[in-house]
């Protein structure tokens, strides 16, 4: 079974599910963010609980990934400033557009052409971040910025 086919199938299930949950509708998201509709919060809480138990069951059983054959494992990250600042920036974008990356793709699939603007923005935002990281990583070459603390790994490599 190819990695690509499995990824498309699981992504397809994910896209179908969020569309059925009407997360592609900006008005629905807005109702949830205005705390008029608890759907998002119940959904997220259940998803995290099911995922939390499920992934630990996999690890406890010593499962190997069906397609790649690797032992199932993951690493976690401690809280850094970038997580908080980045999340706050993301939250503003979410509130303005009433959409996040998965629903944006779903909107386009359902014929909402407004989402083309949001998708273009997401791509620009990613490019700006990558360029910033590339500039930051290039900086240790100069004597003034050669402190070891600045030689952090590229954050993009950790992005799920």
């Amino acid at each position, binding site marked *: 079974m190819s*990695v690509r086919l*499995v*990824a*498309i199938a*699981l*992504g*397809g299930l*994910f*896209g*179908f599910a*969020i*569309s*059925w949950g009407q997360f*592609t509708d900006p008005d629905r998201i*807005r109702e949830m963010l205005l705390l008029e509709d608890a759907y998002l919060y119940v*959904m*997220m809480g*259940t998803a995290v609980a*099911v*995922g*939390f138990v*499920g*992934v630990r069951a*996999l690890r406890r059983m010593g499962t190997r990934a*069906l397609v790649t054959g690797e032992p199932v494992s*993951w690493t976690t*990250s401690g809280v850094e400033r*970038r*997580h*908080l600042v*980045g*999340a*706050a*920036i*993301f*939250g*503003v*974008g979410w*509130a*303005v*557009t009433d959409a*996040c*990356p*998965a629903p944006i*793709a*779903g909107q386009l*699939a*359902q*014929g909402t052409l*407004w989402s083309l603007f*949001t998708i*273009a923005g*997401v791509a*620009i935002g*990613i490019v*700006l971040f*990558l360029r910033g990281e590339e500039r930051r990583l290039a900086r240790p070459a100069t004597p003034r910025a050669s402190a070891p603390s600045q030689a952090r790994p590229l954050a*993009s490599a950790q*992005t*799920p």
Partner: protein
Amino acid sequence: MKRVSDLLVTRPPAFVLGAVLGLIVVAVLATLNQRLGVLGGYSAVVERLSGRAPSFGWRASFLLGVFGGSLLFSALAGGSTVGAGYGWLTRTFTGDWQVLVVGVLLLLGGVLIGYGAKAAGGCTSGNGICGTALGSPASFAATATFMATAIAVTFAIDSLIT
């Protein structure tokens, strides 16, 4: 087919949908040994097209799947579940300049989503569902931050436009 569309026009119970999404997190790990995240799909496409990565990778395929799954839903439901126009933006900004104003706001919002989620290490799915399920402190902190920010900004926008 009519019965299928009748079923799909109403949202499933939130806990059912949540359980399905949680199981998808488990399935991505069980098959690919990877962390689910949709922003990573956009990033994979950008990195491939800008020559930063040699291939699209599985994340771009997952994003393609999200698109395809939504398309299938739309076909089975007999139409889009996205409301007419684009939410508060097209209701607030009308007239000749609507496309420009709403387009610019969506573009800027998208920039914040793309930049912010990259810096935070994930979006609603990557941090909010998957990272938290894996027990990552960074994901819990990021999720609390973007939820609080999004709620606060939505209330602020609401007070300005009503």
